[in-house]
């Protein structure tokens, strides 16, 4: 083979390898690049911002409709967006509201029953029937025992901010009988949870996740939505 032919062959091989690497990076590692990011930075005021999420027993995607999933509410249109990416300002109090529409499930480690990292170390919880009537009274809790009454559906955790919060379910009976059947949920029983935390003074990307192994159909529940952006794995962008 002539020298020019060798050079061309090497160049083609090199370009093919680089293209393959770029494809892998974009397709797998940068797997959330196609998801929308809900912007909360523009609605922050007075050093605070209100973020609203819901977690559902299913979702409205065409490819994985039976996966459990979080949704993020657009603060301007109040429409639910099927994403787990949202941005908040730095050094700001985030007032988080999570509507837990999915049913209860045991925590794999009941340590995650404990509320950690919120302002005051507590959350407030109110459960609602499918008729949207409250069940009991609003409670302020530092532990939601996921093993004693089947009250926890999922968790919301930003480990690098030391924020770990169990998310309540509608309770055992309603979980088993009348969960919301179409996402994003607008009806059906749910647990309403509120808590606050502060974002750091510096910007950056902070991953968040659920600590319930909620990947139905995967080994020990650890795959699928647990490891997929847009479902139960997400990223909070802190903008400084």
């Amino acid at each position: 083979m002539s020298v020019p032919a060798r050079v061309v062959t090497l160049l083609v091989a090199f370009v093919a390898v680089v293209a393959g690497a770029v494809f892998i990076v974009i397709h797998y590692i940068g797997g959330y690049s196609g998801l929308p990011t809900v912007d909360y930075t523009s609605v922050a005021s007075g050093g605070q911002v209100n973020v609203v999420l819901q977690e559902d027993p299913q979702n409205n995607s065409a490819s994985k409709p039976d996966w459990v999933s979080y949704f993020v509410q657009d603060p301007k249109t109040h429409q639910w967006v099927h994403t787990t990416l949202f941005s908040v300002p730095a050094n700001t109090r985030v007032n988080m509201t999570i509507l837990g529409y999915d049913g209860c499930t045991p925590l794999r480690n009941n340590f995650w029953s404990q509320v950690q990292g919120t302002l005051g170390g507590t959350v407030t919880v109110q459960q609602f029937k499918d008729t949207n009537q409250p069940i009991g009274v609003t409670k302020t809790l530092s532990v939601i025992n996921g093993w004693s009454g089947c009250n926890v559906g999922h968790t919301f955790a930003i480990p690098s901010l030391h924020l770990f919060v169990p998310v309540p379910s509608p309770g055992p009976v309603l979980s088993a009988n009348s969960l919301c059947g179409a996402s994003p949920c607008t009806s059906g029983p749910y647990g309403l949870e509120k808590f606050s935390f502060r974002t750091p003074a510096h910007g950056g990307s902070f991953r968040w996740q659920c600590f319930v192994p909620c990947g139905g159909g995967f080994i020990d529940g650890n795959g699928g939505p647990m490891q997929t952006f847009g479902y139960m794995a997400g990223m909070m962008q802190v903008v400084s």
Partner: protein
Amino acid sequence: MAATRSSPAPAAAEPRHGLRIFLIWLPLTIALELVIWFAWYPHMQPGAMTSSSRSQQFDIAVMALMAAPVLLFIWVYAGYALVTWRRRPGDDEDGPHLTGGVGIQATWIIATSVIVLGLFVFGTVELIVPAGAGAGQGPAPIWPPANTVTSPTSWTPGPHNVLQVQVIGQEWSFTYRFPQFGGMESTALVLPVNTPVEFHVTSLDVIHSFWPYLLAVKADANPGVDNVAYTTTKQLGPFTVRCNELCGLWHGAMFNTGFVVSPSAFQAWARGVQAKELRNGLLAALPPYSLTYDPTVIPQLGSAVVKITGITGANGYYYPGPQAGTPGDAVSP
């Protein structure tokens, strides 16, 4: 007239190449050994925070001291050969055919055998003497630390009193239980200085690996397995714990910072966490301390979770019917 025929010139005396190489190699080796011992060794990872990190630091230094002369000899020999025995212009002859050299062969075999066997003995001693050198030894460790005392229910400061720490891996965080402090659990790993520590490493889901590398401890976290590792803390300061087993999406983010603190600060921290978890009900909610856990069994309920066909949601696992409560009294600590 008779032709004059010149007789071949007598071959020049071959210089003593071996001596030359040795004289080049020796000062370089001495210099490099001094650099390794005095300049590199004190700064080698994993540092000197624990007995096992000091041991590993020493081991790496010894390995470097052993390897440096060999490496230098190869480089010096190669360089000498390139300069001295390189092909000259017009020299198309083959090199001389060499045979024999029993002395060189014997020297090579003996020297390499001594080095390898010496390192085998050295490595074995260095694995056994520092109680397994910080490596996971499985559920029945054969090299526990000598002259130590373990109380299963309490810990007081002392250079011989073992602190037990259970490391629990799960996707994607480590948590730490302290059985000598009521079985309290924390996302923080705080350790007292000058204390022998007994790590019990396990997992609740997939295989993780507990790797606080500045402590020179590394033990796989396998579900259903109690993997024991030992070390003794020697220095105050922070350290990073990383997962060293590819365990899913957030494997790269599965790390946290731990601290070696004074014994009094550790006691204050541990008792504080224990009191808080007693107060808020978490200690009662945790399963009894055990060397391993079956995540499908709820000890407080005395039964396993069940999978209910037809229910969507978190993997389909819900409590069995008799444990289901009623709406309105469900959320209670």
